[in-house]
Structure formats: structure tokens, C-alpha cells
């Protein structure tokens, strides 16, 4: 028998990489942030919506039900945004790290492929709730929790793949195990990584609620202020727990990867430090907003703080990946032939598409809702 003298990391394609790595990396990070914000609305908004629907059953809680209505109506749109913004980072990831990503995907097999039908079922669930919630009766609650469960499972599958692709040392053992579906269940980073991300999604879902309250306040001050405080409670409460989860994730990393954040790699140390600082500051601001008579300025600052935190944490995630790649001697592709014309064409179309989207959404928002005279409705 031969052993396995070949590396478990596949050989690069004999075709050139069509752009410098920094462009692909920049687009990967940027589009992943967009995906993350939309995904957090979907996961966090669904959890908050389900809990709020439960709380709102008691009499005298019209704000709860108004919030649930908004979350329910917005969910299909948010899910469309999540999928659309998710396509781009997956594309750029495949150019930069395809050799690892395709391998881990194949090893996961059906488990990875399950994302497709699961997203479809959950998507139809959100539309059912948005279009037919009045006639669904108690089934509405079941569908709501079912979609949440599916979202959490999808998140778990992604956490498996994103962590497994960083563990080529496990590839062979998993493949030798046979079968057509595997997870990365033996990896100590899996659970803290997953829980950290999902709790962050719920917290940021709370921030979306506060942000919605901020937009609503000029027209519906009572509801707006309630929503700001309510969302702030979710954010600050869940983030307080998530801080511990973040440290668990950090300490679960392999020694060499974790060490990057302790000084030897200044960028890693800086983004982690700034991220923790921004996260704690935002948590404090939102904690204060949850109890403030006029929460608007605090929520406004909180949103700013959150954006800084998200940017930092996405970069921390990237540093974790870089650390893992460094330990496995992952060599980037040498042959680079940038397709400059196509890159520029893409950027031009991206700007044109964005302007078109802004024009269409603006036209819709400015037109207001039918049957009302109040013009633009948030």
C-alpha cells in the first residue's frame, strides 16, 4: 500500500488567477459584511419576532404586534438580500481558497448540499408568514419557529464548512471514513465559532429593531421610542453573553493562530482589540439606551459603534483564516493575469446597478403605502 505522500491540499489549476489577490480579498471582505448584516436581520429578526409575538399575545401590547408585523413583512426581502449578498463572497472565496473550500464541501457532501433545500423551505416559510399570517392561526407560530430552526441549521452547516476548510489535517481521516455526508464535529472551534456568530446575529437583530425605531420616531414617536429601547435591551443583553462566547472562540483556536492576536501580528492584535473595545462600548451605549428617556442619540452612536465592531470582527475572522493557512503552508497562486477590462466593467456595472436599485427603492418609499395619505412610510 502507498501511504499518503501527497499533500491533502489540492494542486492549483494551471490557469492564471484573474485578479490580484488584494482586489479579490477586498471584495470578499466587503461583500461578506453586507451578507452578515442581512443575515443578522434574518436570524436575529426571526428570533426576536417569534419571542415578541409570544410576548405580544398579552393584552395592551400593540407595539409588540406592530414590530412583529414589520419583521414578518420585511423577512422575505431580508432573506433575498442575504442570499444575494451571500453569493458574492462565496464566489471570491472560491478564487482565493477554492482548493480548501471545494475539498471541505465535497467531504461534507449531502450535509453541505442540504443548504439548498433548507433555504428554499425557509424562504417559502417567510413568504407564507408575510402573505398569509392572518389566516394561518396557530400554524403561524409553528412556521415561525420552523424557519428559525432551519436558519440555525443553515448557520451550523456554514460554520462546519468554514471551519473544516481550515483543517486539511482532518481531510484524509474524514474521507477514509467513507459515506456521503460529514461534519466537522470534532473541531474544538466549531461550537464556539457557531454560537458566537448566532448570538451576534440575535444581538444585531436587536440593533435592527432599534434602528427601525429610530426611523419611525418622527412619525410614530411612541412606537419609535419603544422599539429603540426594546431593540437595545436585546442587543445589550445578548452581547453581554456573547462576549464570553467570543473569548471561548479565541481560546479554542490552535495555539499558533491564537498567538497572532497576542502581539506578533500587529494587525491581528489591533483589529481584535479595537473590535472588543467597540463592541463593549456599543453594548454600554445600548444598555443606557434601553433605559433612557430619549434613546435616539444613544442608538445613533450605537449603530456607529456596531458598524466599527462588525468591520473589526470580519477582519478578525480573516486573521483566523490567515493564521490557519500559515500553519499549513498554504501557497497562494503565483500565476496572476488580471482581467482589468472585466474588473472595470464589473465596477461600472456595480455602480450602475446600485444607482438603479437606489432609484427604484426610493421611488417605492417616497410613494408611500396605498390607502394612506402619509406619504413616505419607513
Amino acid at each position, binding site marked *: 500500500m502507498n501511504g499518503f505522500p501527497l499533500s491533502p491540499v*489540492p494542486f*492549483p489549476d*494551471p490557469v492564471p488567477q484573474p485578479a490580484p489577490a488584494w482586489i479579490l480579498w477586498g471584495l470578499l471582505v466587503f461583500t461578506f459584511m453586507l451578507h452578515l448584516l442581512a443575515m443578522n436581520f434574518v436570524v436575529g429578526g426571526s428570533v426576536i419576532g417569534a419571542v415578541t409575538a409570544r410576548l405580544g399575545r398579552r393584552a395592551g401590547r400593540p407595539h409588540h404586534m406592530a414590530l412583529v408585523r414589520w419583521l414578518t413583512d420585511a423577512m422575505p426581502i431580508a432573506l433575498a438580500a442575504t442570499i444575494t449578498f451571500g453569493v458574492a463572497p462565496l464566489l471570491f472565496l*472560491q478564487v482565493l481558497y477554492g482548493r480548501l473550500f471545494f475539498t471541505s464541501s465535497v467531504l461534507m457532501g449531502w450535509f453541505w448540499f442540504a443548504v439548498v433545500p433548507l433555504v428554499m423551505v425557509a424562504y417559502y416559510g417567510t413568504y407564507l408568514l408575510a402573505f398569509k399570517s392572518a389566516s394561518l392561526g396557530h400554524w403561524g407560530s409553528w412556521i415561525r419557529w420552523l424557519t428559525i430552526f432551519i436558519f440555525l441549521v443553515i448557520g451550523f452547516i456554514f460554520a462546519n464548512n468554514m471551519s473544516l476548510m481550515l483543517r486539511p489535517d482532518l481531510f484524509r481521516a474524514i474521507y477514509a471514513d467513507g459515506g456521503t455526508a460529514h461534519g466537522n464535529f470534532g473541531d474544538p472551534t466549531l461550537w464556539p465559532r457557531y454560537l458566537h456568530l448566532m448570538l451576534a446575529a440575535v444581538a444585531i437583530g436587536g440593533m435592527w429593531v432599534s434602528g427601525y425605531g429610530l426611523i419611525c420616531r418622527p412619525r410614530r414617536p411612541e412606537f419609535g421610542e419603544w422599539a429603540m429601547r426594546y431593540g437595545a435591551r436585546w442587543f445589550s443583553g445578548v452581547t453581554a453573553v456573547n462576549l464570553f462566547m467570543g473569548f471561548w472562540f479565541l481560546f479554542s483556536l490552535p495555539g499558533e493562530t491564537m498567538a497572532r492576536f497576542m502581539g506578533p501580528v500587529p494587525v491581528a492584535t489591533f483589529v481584535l482589540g479595537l473590535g472588543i473595545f467597540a463592541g463593549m462600548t456599543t453594548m454600554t451605549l445600548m444598555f443606557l439606551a434601553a433605559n433612557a428617556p430619549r434613546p435616539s442619540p444613544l442608538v445613533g452612536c450605537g449603530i456607529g459603534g456596531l458598524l466599527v465592531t462588525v468591520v473589526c470582527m470580519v477582519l478578525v475572522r480573516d486573521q483566523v483564516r490567515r493564521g490557519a493557512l500559515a500553519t499549513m503552508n498554504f501557497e497562494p497562486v503565483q500565476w496572476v493575469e488580471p482581467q482589468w477590462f472585466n474588473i472595470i466593467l464589473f465596477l461600472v456595472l456595480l455602480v450602475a446597478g446600485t444607482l438603479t436599485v437606489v432609484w427604484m427603492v426610493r421611488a417605492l418609499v417616497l410613494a*408611500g403605502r396605498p390607502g394612506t395619505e402619509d406619504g413616505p412610510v419607513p
Partner: protein
Amino acid sequence: MNYPIWQVPAPGLVIALVSIAHVFISHFAVGGGLFLVLTERRARQRNDALLLAYVRRLSRFFLLLTLVFGAVTGVGIWFAIGLVHPQATSSLINTFVWGWAIEWTMFITEIVAAMVYYYGWDRLPARTHLTVGWIYFITAWGSLAVITGILTYMMTPGGWLTERSFWSGFLNETYLPSLVMRTFVCVGLAGVYALLAASWSGDPRLKSKVARYAGLGWVLPMAVVVPLSLIWYLAAAAGAGIPAAEILGADGTGLPAILKALFTADGTTGHPVAQRAALTTIVAATGVILMTLFLVARRRRNYGPIFTGLLTFLALVAMGGGEWMRADLRKPYVIGGFMFVNGVRLPPPAGAIRAPADIQVNDPYALDVLRRDGMLAHARWSQVQPAAEAAALEEPEARAEALFRTGRELFKLACTKCHTTDGYQGIRPLVAGRSTSGLQTILGHLARPVNREGRETGWDDPDLRLATWRGRRMPPFPGNQAEQYALAVYLSRLGGDDRAGFERQQAHGSPAAGPGSGREETP
């Protein structure tokens, strides 16, 4: 070999099922977008409240079908090809990432436009609403135009093989006919979809109106243009070296020759699956046309969901058969002239653009390298005895068993992208009763490189054609002689010859280049 194998039986079927569902819906999505906006304009110009209400109802169904099912199955294809053909997907991504990125900008605009169109019925002024509808259609068609370039490249990569440039691959020989054909398929499917939606209505006036408008104005144009563009497409494919006639068992690429062959072929030459798919498409498409004509002529005011459901099903079958045939015309390549379905690449053609001299780019998965070193020397995930070692074992039982195990692994590496053991394209019936030596001969003749005139040439000939055994469109066996023997032993045993592998066979291939001796790689 470079990537692990997702060990599901007939993995190509996973791609086929997801792709056919997606292609059907996505063509609906393009044609339906045009149908919605033109029908809305028509209804508004004629002040036709009935038609306007119908279009409005249609738009919700459209939203639910295209945004959810269409968009998610589109992502699903990507998941499926990454699992089944990681090697090919990686090459495609590296070549066309900016094509997909450009398509993504259209996808975003398309999704937002579909939502604004639906949510804007009561909110937007008519003119703005129609503009949004047009934006939807233009971006949806733009997506189709981009993806068609990548799809057709996979069959006819044009000048890309030597130039390695995005546009020489994108604007390939079959791009334009394919785009015209797909555009009219979109138009036709939109008509089918309009009939299906109208069939639920209880109003005979609406049914009659839609029957004439959608049947005559949308479905029948497809019936005229698609066969014409199909002739154009097949001629372009043939010009690019695709032996369409041979695959379909015909003696020419004209429609009469192909039709004659499809209705009379006995499956002994060419690719039987492609022939069945083409026949299915023709029968189903004819059914769609006849049912539409019948509906318009005789049942205009009185057609129900069962009738239009059958019509839609036939359209799906026609479309699915067409896509299946397209995929089979591409065989034995997954990327024409570049990579076979089993992930083995051809050596770059003479004169092809290569990496700069200071960058070393090796390809251990090129056919010539694998034939020299043996597949198992570069099979990153295999752990079996090299074929030459197995064949050299003294003890007959142990030798036969080792050859069987090695042959089984080679079958997995080289054949399971298309064949199963007993299921879809099952190999067992194909090798039943065949001897090891007979199978070795067949394996040696699966595909040969020939030039345009049919004369033997090298695998790096820029004008390469394939001469395949009985026109079966199989890739050449990609291993060395010892591996060919081991695979033949495995297949022969599978076919019922229990003595296969017991014969004393001279192990082929030089020991220095044999399996197990070359398992190092130079990055």
C-alpha cells in the same frame, strides 16, 4: 484525483435534476418579465381592467416562483457542480469569476426590481411601474446573456484554448445561436406560464383573451424560431468540432437528417442517452405546439389547470431533454478541449499562452503526465496498491484480489462521474461476459486524437478532434498500461469472469515511471 470524490451513485444526476429545474424557472423568469411588462402596457393602453388585474395576480406567482425557487436552485447548481466536479468548477471560477461578478450586479438589480414591481402595484405611478418592469426584464436577460457565454464556452471554448482570454472563450462559436434560441425559449415559456395562470380563472373572457394573446403571440413564435436557431446552433457546434451528427447517430447536422436518425436509431452508434434526450425534446415540443394550437382553435374559453398543467409539464420535459442533450453533446469533456468529465486535462495545445518563465506551473492531472506516471501516482485521496505492484504478486489469489481492489479504485477515479455499477449508465451489463484482454483492447481504444481530416495526431494538436469507440463519446483511459490491466480485471470480474486477474500478465510500464514512484509534487 486532485479532489476527493463525493461518492454518490451517478452524481451527474444531482446536477441534472437541479439544473433542469433551475433552467426551466430561470427561462420563465426572463420571458415572464417581458410578458408582465408588455401585458401591463397593453392593458393600460387599452384601459383593460380585466387584463390588468390578471397581470397583477400573475406577478405574485411570478415573485414566489422566480425569486425563491429560481434564485435558490441557481445557487443550488453552483453547490452541485462544486460537489460533483470540483476540478472543473475551480477552473471555471478562475476563468470567469468576473463574468459571474458582472452577472451578480444584474442579479441584485433583477431581484430588487422584481420586488419593487410587485410591491409597487398600488404605490408607483404607472409609468414608473412599467420602467421598473423593464429594468427587471433587461437585467434578467442580461443574466441570461452572461451565463450563456459561460455555458457555451464549456462546450465550444473557442479561441480560449490557445489565447486563455476571457472574451475569446465567452464569445465562442455557439454563443450567438444559443442566446437567440434561449431568448425565444424564454418567450415561449412565458406564454405557457400565462396560459397556466389564466386557466385558474373562472372568467371565459379572460381565458379567451389570454389564449389568443399568449398562445399566438408568445408560444408559437418559439415554435418557429427555436427549430431554426437549433439548426444554426448544431451547425455552429459542428463547425467547432463537436460531432453532433455522430453523437445523434445521424449522417448530417440538418434537421431532416437528425430527425430521421432519432426516429430510426437503434442505439448501436453514437450516444444513446443523447439520442433519447433529443427524441424526448422533439416529441414534447411538438406536443406543446399542438396543444397550444388546439387550445387557441377549439378550447379558447374553456381550458382548465389540468390541460395547461400538462402543457407546462410537456414544456418542462422538452426543456429538460434539450439541456440533457446539450450536456451530452459536450461529452466526453466537461470543458471542451480542456478537461474531460473525469477531471483529466489535455496537455495545452501547441502555441497556447503559458505562464511567464519565472513562474513554474505544473499540471500533474494532464493526460500525458497521468499516462506516464499512472493515475494512482497523483491520486491524492487513494490508498490502494499500485497496479504494477499488484500485477507482480506471485500468489495468484492475492494477485487477483489486489488487482480487483486497485481496479475498483481506478474505476472510481476514471469512470464514476458518468457510470454506476448497476444503476444509471450501469457498467455491469456493458461488460458482461467480456474477457480481460477484450476489455483492455476496448479501454485502449476509447478515444484517439485525430485532426480535422480524421488522421491520427497528438493530444496537443490545436485543431484536435476525438475519434471515439463506436462514437460513444468516452474520454481516453487516463492511466498507464498496468492500470489499464487492473481496470480490465475489475470490469471483467464485474461482468462475471471469476478467473480475471489469475492469468499471469506482464506488468507494463517502466518501474521507474510506474505507480508509487512519482508521488511527489512540485508546486
